[in-house]
């Protein structure tokens, strides 16, 4: 048993942390959010240079082929910085789905392009007026080989060079120019409506040996890690605030109620963090990683909301002032809650995967 990080994992984590400190200051994120900007495309170049776009891509396709924990640490640090980007959608979700397909030249070409940063492949899955019942339930019918239809709550669709769509018989890669995208307003972050009107889809990527939901196991883990990183930051902010904010002549952290908000946050964070780490290990070592990935992701989704709520209790009014920065994390806690299926749905999947 060894729950410490390897040297190379520490190195990766620290390099992402330095990137975030250098390139994504919180003030800039606050400014972007205030200006209605969704993300900064310049980061994509930097991500590709660092190899993170290919973190989960096999070395044979030019990727880093990282173990799941190393990949999770990248996302943990991005989450800690509340960095908005299509990286999760393209380099984790789509890469997972592609790796779940049968081998083909088309597949490897896409993986290679994702790794080198020339392709941002966004999965466009969610159907309007439908609950999430897994990837397989999102398939669109083709009419005469043409794709027509609408997908909603597609993350970072405006950043896409291509979309990944489920259709009867497999997955289709559709150039972004062939679709129209529209940002959905409100509290949700970077969610879009994507409309396809009679798009020719060409050759399909055929399913592999396991279901697409299984293929998303690593994506669930890194998505959860992103939320864990956000919780870590909210904990640090809350502890700091409880120590510096003085009311009734004393730092508010002396009040048991304030302490209890922080303890709720801590517990939510640690529960998610260790579920993520163990799930990453389970996948790496071949121990029901699918079931554990559902556990990690559903725990992180629930925890992130609990943590954000607790952080808001600690901060009171200033926490709701977007200039302060806490709301960046609050918004993420909500926006990612159902990105890979609701926690309830994920727990049902977990029960099945556990073989109960």
């Amino acid at each position, binding site marked *: 048993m060894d729950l410490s990080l390897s040297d190379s994992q520490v190195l990766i984590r620290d390099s992402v942390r330095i990137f975030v400190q250098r390139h994504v200051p919180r003030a800039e994120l606050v400014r972007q959010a*205030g200006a209605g900007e969704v993300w900064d495309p310049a980061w994509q170049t930097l991500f590709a240079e660092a190899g993170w776009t290919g973190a989960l891509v096999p070395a044979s396709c030019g990727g880093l082929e990282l173990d799941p924990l190393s990949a999770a640490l990248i996302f943990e640090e991005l989450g800690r910085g509340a960095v908005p980007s299509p990286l999760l959608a393209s380099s984790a979700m789509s890469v997972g789905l592609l790796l779940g397909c049968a081998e083909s030249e088309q597949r490897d070409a896409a993986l290679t392009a994702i790794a080198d940063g020339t392709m941002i492949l966004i999965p466009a899955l*969610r159907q*309007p*007026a*439908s*609950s*999430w*019942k897994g990837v397989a339930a999102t398939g669109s019918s083709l009419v005469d080989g043409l794709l027509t239809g609408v997908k*909603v*709550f597609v993350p970072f669709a405006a950043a896409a060079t291509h979309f990944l769509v489920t259709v009867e018989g497999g997955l289709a890669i559709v150039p972004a120019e062939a679709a129209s995208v529209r940002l*959905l*307003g*409100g*509290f*949700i972050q970077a*969610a879009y*409506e994507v409309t396809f009107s009679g798009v020719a889809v060409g050759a399909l990527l055929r399913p592999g040996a396991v279901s697409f939901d299984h293929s998303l196991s690593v994506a669930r883990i890194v998505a959860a890690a992103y939320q864990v990183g956000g919780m870590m930051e909210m904990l640090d902010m809350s502890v700091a605030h409880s120590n510096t904010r*003085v*009311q*009734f*002549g004393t730092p508010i952290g002396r*009040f048991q*109620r*304030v302490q209890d908000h922080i303890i709720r946050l801590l517990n939510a964070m640690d529960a998610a963090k260790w579920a993520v780490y163990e799930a990453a290990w389970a996948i790496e070592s071949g121990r029901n990683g699918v079931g554990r990935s559902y556990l990690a992701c559903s725990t992180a989704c629930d925890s992130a*909301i609990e943590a*954000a*709520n607790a952080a*808001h*209790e600690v901060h*009171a*009014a200033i926490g*709701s*002032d*977007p200039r302060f920065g806490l*709301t960046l994390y*609050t918004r993420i806690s*909500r*926006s990612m*809650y*159902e990105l890979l299926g*609701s926690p*309830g749905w994920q727990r049902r999947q977990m029960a099945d995967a556990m073989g109960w």
Partner: protein
Amino acid sequence: MEFELKYTPAQEAFRQEVTAWLAANVPDGVAVRPRTFEESYALYLKKRALGRALGVKGWLYPSGEKEYGGGGLGLDQIVVLEEETARLGLGLPPYYDSGGKMGAASIRVWGTEDQKKRFLPPIYTGAVRSWQLLTEPTAGSDLAGIKMTAIRDGDVYVFNGQKIYIGSHHGADRYWTIAVTDPKGKRHQNVSWFMIDSATPGITTQPLYMLSAQSEGETDEFGHKNIIFFDNVRVPADCLVGGENNGWKVASTHLEVEHSGQGNIRTNPVWIALLAHCRTQMRDGRPIIEDPEAREKLAEIYSRLEAVRLLSTRNFWMVYAGEKRSYHGSQTSYLRKTTNLWLTKAIHDLLGPEALTSDALYGAMGGIAEMQQRRGIVEQHPGGTTDIQRVVIARRLGVGAREPQQAGRLGEEGMARKAAVEA
């Protein structure tokens, strides 16, 4: 027990008068949610005009004494007025003047005759809108820790300092506030309460956009809070209400009003919209409400909202019947806040990401769900955080071997007047 309001023939007659007047005077679109700042401002002007018209009738502040421009009406009539305005999605005063409501309460209890004559009529007739200026950057829950000073200089007090998380958009005509009048004095005995003209030189305002921009019950996306700076602001000494260094006691009057709310007997409008949404919207090819899981979640939500409604009803009745309250106001405030925060996740679980967007096509409940997601968070804190509400509840219950406190500590006369104000 009787949980419904029953009406006398006199009340029903008054209702006729009210509905007829409202039909004739309430402009169209006054309960509509504005989509731009311009629409928001136009709506505000409509409401101000309506408020002034109500003021002329004495119906803007129906419980206020007639001699000061109020309606001088009894509870029987006030209840009818509130019901009929609520039916139109309004309220009394029509939502834009919670500051006037609370400030007037303090002035009625603590003001001199001269002050009542000067300050109350503009409020009661809708001539002015008032904001409360309490919180400072370093004094939120710890209101007695304010730093803004008001130093006597002849016939005026000179104000310096700042207040934060104030009011909303479209400005106000009056500010009431507390400030330190005796910088060397003891805590709670060094502050005074003032009613100030917002146009006094030296006052500047800076907008502050929160996660939830709305305030004062508005479903208005385009609003904001404010930071208000006082830079050598000279306020006439006769604007001090309740005596120098007596401001903490004066504040206890409006804090009681604010913390406790007045109770109400309305069904939560978010619930109404949620149920309607689930009945009419399709998901997976059937109305959401036919999905057993959704049904169960709805039942759970309803159960928790009913607890809040029932305790609000209890409070309403206690005020109505002149019962002495203790923990009741803060309990309901605490439950309402915590339930609304819980509700954000419950609705999210029930409706999915449709609850997170205000998009015209996909936003659930016409965008009300998305708004509730933000407001459920933001509204934890104004008017006493959930932590502070629990401080009050514990004190009122007499937990910790302290003498159980009554609500407000206003004394009998104050209590009676307050009840009248709040009813």
